[in-house]
């Protein structure tokens, strides 16, 4: 199958406008007749549900949590980018576009990224109009801060709770549409299968997590905004419920999975401290605006940080990357921390940590200013570690944080299954091999507020959709398949819990498919995962029944899918014989240990097609063409 990205013709700056003009419109009177299912109520799904309903479509929205307001997006801390240039520091749509393409190590689509930069400004306007309490300057204007990979200050924020405030904005708009009867909301529902009829996405099967019943819902289009799969690693900064299950079910029904090995490992997280640990906590990248990263110069230095004199500290980021200093992109900062720890210069009990020090910033700006900017983060740090970051430097280490990979989508955000649109972190679209900070919130809201409302119209206006409902035989087939899998999970009655398997999978992925990869390691991981999956299906212990509220059953289902995606991640990493962004294969590096791309052979998106339980997926390539930026070795010096 030839992948057609459907990028419109014309100059980069005019593509989106042209495309919007060329897209067919749905007659306003007909919109009500079209049913659209939205899975997910994070920034992407919440904003899409609200906007589609405002346009008049008949929307059904689903989420796992008890309320749409609790989607994982709520946890985003640092901020959202936009090319407003309010600081007059030389920002522009072009610069945001360029920074994002470069930050992604030239593995994203120019046209998508440019559109993202274009609509970024509309997002801020929309959110302000919704009453999002962004930080303000004394004069009442919107305030900005800096994030990694940029030399301009373009990040808008609401303390360390930006995701919460943006999500509550979208949730408010969604609530308004629910009250108006344009959206029907289904909470505590887990999507377990996509129903495809005549090659088109026409509905979903969900499990009602309270009653345990399986339910069928038919529609004319399905929007998947189910978030990222970082939890495959077991420990990550993602919410506990974040999963790959909805995306994986769609993959099994024919949606290609793009760049699955592109996982972002975030440099500033609270280090792992024990085996029972259930998740990792991010310390927002915004902290790198004012915090300085360092390790002791002498490996094994055991003195407490405050007793190590300046001369014996290694501010390795400032040293190596004077241009960007502590604000280098995430992949670079993470790998640098690993390199320091590998040299024995790590700190703390486990020696797997580096310092993030605010002493100089507090001296310069005063404690109050720092508290206003980061108060809630400092408080969170203290709650977890019982240490006070105003007085002693934070200890941080990289952790899995975001997945750039996701379901493949074209310029319209439609997957390889017609009628299945994929938004937000669940798609692969805009971040290439590394996402810049504060751009996931931007992308989720761009997809939901400003892109899909148009492109779905274009699809519905020209698709010839047979009239179907939940009685169609494909719904029965999906239903039976899902039911059989639940029965199977419950009937194994083995000796290990799903979490136990999940922990082991996490170790494998972190060790062999994490910050540094080697072909031997990846080959080994592939075997280990296949073996673990086999054991899982022989020896998992779930307990309880399917006809009740059963969190152990929910977990088992998620873990089964993580085992599957884990293998696809490894296969993808093996196939990419270069290093780029987050994908650092030891065999491909520059003399200065930076990722060495191979633009000749790997300037493409890798898209994987499901070929059945016991086969490896089939590889498809979408070549990336760069007409507006020159491919260069990234430099942050």
């Amino acid at each position, binding site marked *: 199958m030839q992948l057609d990205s459907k990028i419109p013709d014309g100059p980069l700056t005019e593509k989106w406008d042209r495309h919007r003009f060329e897209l067919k419109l749905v007659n306003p009177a007909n919109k009500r007749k079209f049913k659209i299912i939205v899975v997910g109520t994070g920034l992407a799904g919440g904003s899409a549900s609200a906007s589609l309903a405002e346009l008049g479509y008949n929307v059904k929205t689903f989420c796992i949590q008890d*309320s749409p307001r609790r989607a*994982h997006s709520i946890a985003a801390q640092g901020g959202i980018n936009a090319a407003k240039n*309010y600081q007059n520091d030389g920002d522009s749509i072009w610069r945001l576009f360029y920074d994002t393409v470069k930050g992604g190590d030239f593995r994203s689509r120019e046209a998508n990224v440019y559109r993202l930069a274009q609509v970024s400004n509309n997002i801020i306007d929309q959110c302000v109009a919704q009453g999002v309490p962004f930080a303000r300057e*004394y004069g*009442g204007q919107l305030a900005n801060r800096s994030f990694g990979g940029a030399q301009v200050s373009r990040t808008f924020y609401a303390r360390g709770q930006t995701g919460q405030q943006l999500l509550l904005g979208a949730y408010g708009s969604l609530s308004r549409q629910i009250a108006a009867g344009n959206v029907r909301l289904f*909470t505590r529902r887990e999507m377990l299968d996509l129903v495809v009829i005549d090659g088109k996405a026409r509905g979903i099967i969900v499990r009602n997590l309270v009653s345990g019943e399986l339910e069928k819902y038919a529609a004319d289009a399905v929007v998947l905004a189910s978030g990222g799969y970082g939890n495959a690693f077991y420990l990550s900064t993602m919410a506990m419920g974040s999963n790959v299950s909805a995306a994986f079910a769609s993959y099994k029904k024919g949606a290609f999975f793009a760049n699955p090995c592109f996982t972002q490992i975030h440099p500033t997280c609270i280090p792992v401290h*024990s085996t029972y640990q259930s998740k990792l906590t991010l310390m927002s990248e915004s902290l790198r605006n004012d915090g300085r990263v360092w390790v002791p110069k002498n490996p094994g230095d055991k003195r407490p940080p405050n007793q190590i004199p300046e001369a014996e500290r290694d501010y390795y980021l400032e040293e190596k990357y004077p241009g960007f200093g502590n604000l280098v992109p995430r992949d670079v900062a993470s790998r640098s921390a690993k390199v320091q720890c590998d040299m024995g210069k790590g700190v703390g009990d486990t020696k797997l940590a580096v310092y993030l020090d605010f002493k100089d910033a507090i001296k310069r700006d005063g404690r109050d200013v720092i508290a206003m900017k980061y108060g809630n983060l400092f408080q*969170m740090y203290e709650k*977890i570690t*019982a240490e006070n970051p105003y007085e002693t430097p934070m200890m941080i280490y990289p952790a899995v944080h975001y997945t750039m990979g996701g379901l493949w989508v074209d310029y319209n955000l439609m997957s390889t299954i017609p009628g299945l649109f994929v938004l937000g972190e669940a798609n692969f679209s805009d971040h290439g091999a590394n996402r810049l900070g504060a751009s996931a919130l931007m992308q989720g809201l761009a997809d939901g507020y400003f892109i899909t409302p148009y492109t779905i119209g274009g699809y519905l206006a020209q698709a010839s959709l047979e009239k179907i409902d939940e009685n169609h035989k494909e719904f029965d087939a999906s239903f039976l398949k899902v039911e059989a899998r639940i029965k199977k999970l419950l009937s194994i009655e083995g000796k290990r819990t799903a979490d136990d398997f999940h922990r082991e999978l996490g170790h494998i992925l972190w060790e062999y498919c994490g910050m540094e990869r080697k072909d031997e390691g990846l080959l080994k991981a592939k075997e280990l995962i296949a073996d673990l999956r086999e054991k899982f299906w022989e020896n998992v212990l779930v307990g309880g029944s399917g006809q009740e509220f059963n969190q152990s059953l929910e977990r088992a289902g998620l873990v089964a899918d993580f085992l599957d995606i884990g293998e696809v991640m490894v296969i993808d990493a093996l196939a990419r014989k270069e290093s780029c962004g987050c994908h650092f294969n030891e065999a491909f590096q520059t003399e200065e240990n930076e990722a060495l791309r191979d633009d000749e052979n790997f300037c493409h998106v890798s898209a994987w097609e499901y070929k059945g339980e016991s086969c490896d997926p089939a590889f498809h390539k979408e070549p990336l063409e760069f007409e507006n930026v020159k491919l260069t070795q990234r430099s942050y010096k």
Partner: protein
Amino acid sequence: MTKAGDKSCINLKLKVWRQKGSDVKGRFETYEARNVSTDMSFLEMLDVVNEEMILSGKDPIAFDHDCREGICGTCGAMVNGRAHGPEKGTTLCQLHMRHFSNGDTVVIEPWRSRAFKVVKDLVVDRSAFDKIIQAGGYISVNVGGAPDGNAIPVPQEVAEKAMDAAACIGCGACVAACPNASAMLFTGAKISQFALLPQGLPEAKKRALAMVGKMDELGFGNCANETECEKECPKEISIENIARMNREFLKAGFL
């Protein structure tokens, strides 16, 4: 109090409310939690207890949680009679076992309120909060056509105050802590956020009437100035917001 890094362990007795579903009667059951590391969070302690229960063929304790960072508002339970446990300004997921001592008995119950039915064990149905927001907890603005973000300046102190109110995570602890199961702090926080911001003014009256009306309709109690809500709120939302809501409501009534 032990410090992080001390690998000290404690043994606890847990008295946990077990209830199969919303229509069946519940009761307390007692469990032993052994070798609990004081570095664990409360929910990690429950994870370990649950793993053991699964392995020994028992029904694990159902509890709601997601972010485990104190921001999503999903977790929550009464711990020894305190909503989210004994620490001030802390959600249950952010409560660490270093605040307990060896040999303690810990009583764990779900939120109890007429408007929040128990779903299972510690899990409750808080959809009433969503309904209060649906009644008017938003600014009615469609996508498209918003003016430039800087077109309406908002003084910094106003933005900060609005943010203080907007920090509510919708966890329901205020309702659980209130002797009258009132939802005034939750509702007041949302009404205040929009009453403070210029963007919220056009609908201020309508919003106050609709949200307060919905709150009453859903069976939440009245505020009798007990101030328990403010004490137990993990985000330390101020009861000033209740006063502001009352003013908004009165203003709206006299229009």
